[in-house]
């Protein structure tokens, strides 16, 4: 029996070269001696080969004969235009730049390297002065296509079925978010992609199903500050921050939020917050280097929390 790689290559060549779709009998005839003689064994071997080619991304068409003496029979071909990568016309420096990018961005999969080879670039050089770990989730490519083609997606999230017009896919602080319009809720929502219910499959509808808002900027589509990811109107909380943390906090909230600079190097900042839980987590992350001064309700909330932990 012929080597499997050889048979797969011959099958691929045949289906690319043929002008007319071919039946399995015709294929086996052209690839003489490469498929088993028996009908059942031949069909089994061919189905495995077809699955293998589809697995590596080859678009094999199966066309069922509508009439004539072979009505109902399936014939196969590969559309060369669907098979071949369009010529990207990349220059050498552009290929190298993509190579460096794939070397620096680590997703834990080989797909980036496979893509580089396809566009004619070489191996991603592993020694680079920067390495960025980016989480990889199987659903992301489909969501990106849905965003790019403006197709509605359906999924389950926090126990609810959602039908969402996806506007943007954003990586922020190490997590992927989908921003869009939740049709049932009638409002804009942000979803953590890794929290999509894994049991319920993500469905993608047909393209051009909605218009994205003109003024949407994906880079600012979700607030970067978790303290602002709340439901209500933000309130202003006044926090005293020690010198040891002053520089970092000022950098984080912006110098315009510093309302007082004390001689010992500490600062007073006014922080907008719409999410009490995120705010508490933020302020307690500084331990004894920060203290809520006002409003009293927030200060009391922090003290009560600390008392419960210290008990």
């Amino acid at each position, binding site marked *: 029996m012929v*080597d499997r*790689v050889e048979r*797969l*290559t*011959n099958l*691929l*060549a045949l289906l*690319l070269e043929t002008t007319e779709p071919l039946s399995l009998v015709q294929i086996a005839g052209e690839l*003489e001696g490469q498929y088993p003689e028996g009908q059942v064994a031949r069909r089994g071997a061919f189905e495995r080969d077809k699955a*293998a080619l589809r697995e*590596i991304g*080859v678009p094999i068409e199966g066309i069922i004969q509508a009439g004539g003496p072979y009505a109902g029979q399936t014939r196969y071909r590969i559309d060369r235009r669907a098979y071949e990568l369009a*010529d*990207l016309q990349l*220059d050498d420096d*552009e290929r190298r*730049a*993509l190579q460096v990018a*794939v070397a*620096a*961005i680590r997703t834990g*999969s080989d*797909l980036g390297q496979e*893509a580089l*080879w*396809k566009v004619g670039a070489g*191996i991603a050089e592993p020694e680079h*002065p*920067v*390495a*960025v*770990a*980016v989480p*990889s989730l*199987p659903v992301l*490519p*489909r969501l*990106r296509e849905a*965003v*790019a083609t403006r197709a509605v997606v359906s999924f389950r999230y926090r126990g609810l079925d959602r039908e969402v017009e996806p506007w943007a896919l954003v*990586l*922020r602080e*190490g*997590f992927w978010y989908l921003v869009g319009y939740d049709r049932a809720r009638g409002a804009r929502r942000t979803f953590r992609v890794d929290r999509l219910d894994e049991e319920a499959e993500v469905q993608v509808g047909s393209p051009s199903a909605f218009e994205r808002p003109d003024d949407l900027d*994906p*880079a600012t*589509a979700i607030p*970067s500050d978790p303290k602002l990811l709340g439901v209500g109107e933000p309130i202003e909380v006044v926090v005293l921050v020690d010198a*040891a943390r002053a*520089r*970092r906090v000022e950098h984080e909230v912006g110098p315009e939020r510093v309302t007082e600079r004390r001689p010992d190097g500490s600062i007073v900042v006014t922080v907008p917050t719409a999410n009490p839980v995120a705010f508490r987590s933020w302020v*307690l992350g500084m*331990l*004894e280097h920060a203290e809520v001064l006002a409003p009293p309700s927030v200060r009391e909330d922090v003290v009560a*929390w*600390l*008392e*419960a*932990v*210290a008990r």
Partner: protein
Amino acid sequence: VSAERPVRTGSRRRHRNAEARLRRLLVMLPWLMEQGSVPVAEVARRFDLTEDEVAADLELVSLCGLPPFVDELIDVFIDEGTVFVGVPRLFTRALRLDAPEAFELLVAGRAAMQLPGADPEGPLGRGLAKLAAALGEVGDDGLAVDLERPGSADLLVAAAAATARVELAHRSASTDELVDRVVVPRRVHVDRGRWYVDAHDERSGQLRTFRLDRIEEVRAVPPEGGDPGVDLAGLGTTAVRAEGFTEPLPEPGRWFEDPGVERVTLRLAPAARWVVERYPVDEVTVEQGGAGEMLLARLPVVDDRWLGRLLVRLGPDAEVVEPVERRDAGRRAAAAVLARYRRS
């Protein structure tokens, strides 16, 4: 650069199934056809194969063909260690990118556009624009990667590229003291949205990892005497060059795998689930209890203060299971913060 990459030898053979071999051939053939002739060793390096694997696969496809032009479809042969390609007929073009591959390339490119020195008008920006056009996308595709690069990253990356000495004003996580350290950055890495620098620390003589948000200042160590130093990639700074660092760098996200770091097991309520997403963990198990589904997470803890801070933030949603001597960490940290509130 690729010449320095070690060539795989036959002794490191791994099993390659038919799909994997064909997949590689379908990217190798179009490239070979464009080149005409290439040394086998170069083909092996470029496609991450051994020379034997390249020879075996090319020999196999040279037998491929269809009547009436058997043996002519893929006209390739190896002579004296060089691959020669005759008339290119079939497989002159690679397979189109599938959605996952296109996604990986786009994300890598978009993320790399946010690294120091990236230029939208430069080769990466142009390459990405051509890629988007080939994918049939015009204008904004709604994909955004935001790495929130801190200001100190540029100098650290330039220093890592040049292996140059810099001085860091670093605030220690355990003592909160601001300490000046002379280090040689080896690499800057980003994990779970946080920026770190892996650097050779001159005082301890070891490779250490520092969080960039704890670095308050970075200064290049200027060269002295006749040393011309090294220019840090257009940043207008010159620094002393250091050499001879060969310690391997850990994969981003895995540097906590050091078994010398203490492990703590926490019981986490659903509201504290973010801990296992945010921090590296060795192991997570689900525990069904009276209060619903709890997570038991074993994670490396570098110091007591870090653990105390985490427990104060989590409050009733977390408790230390083991070791027993750490059970008090949250209570002690909370008491210290409370003392401050009671003073004022």
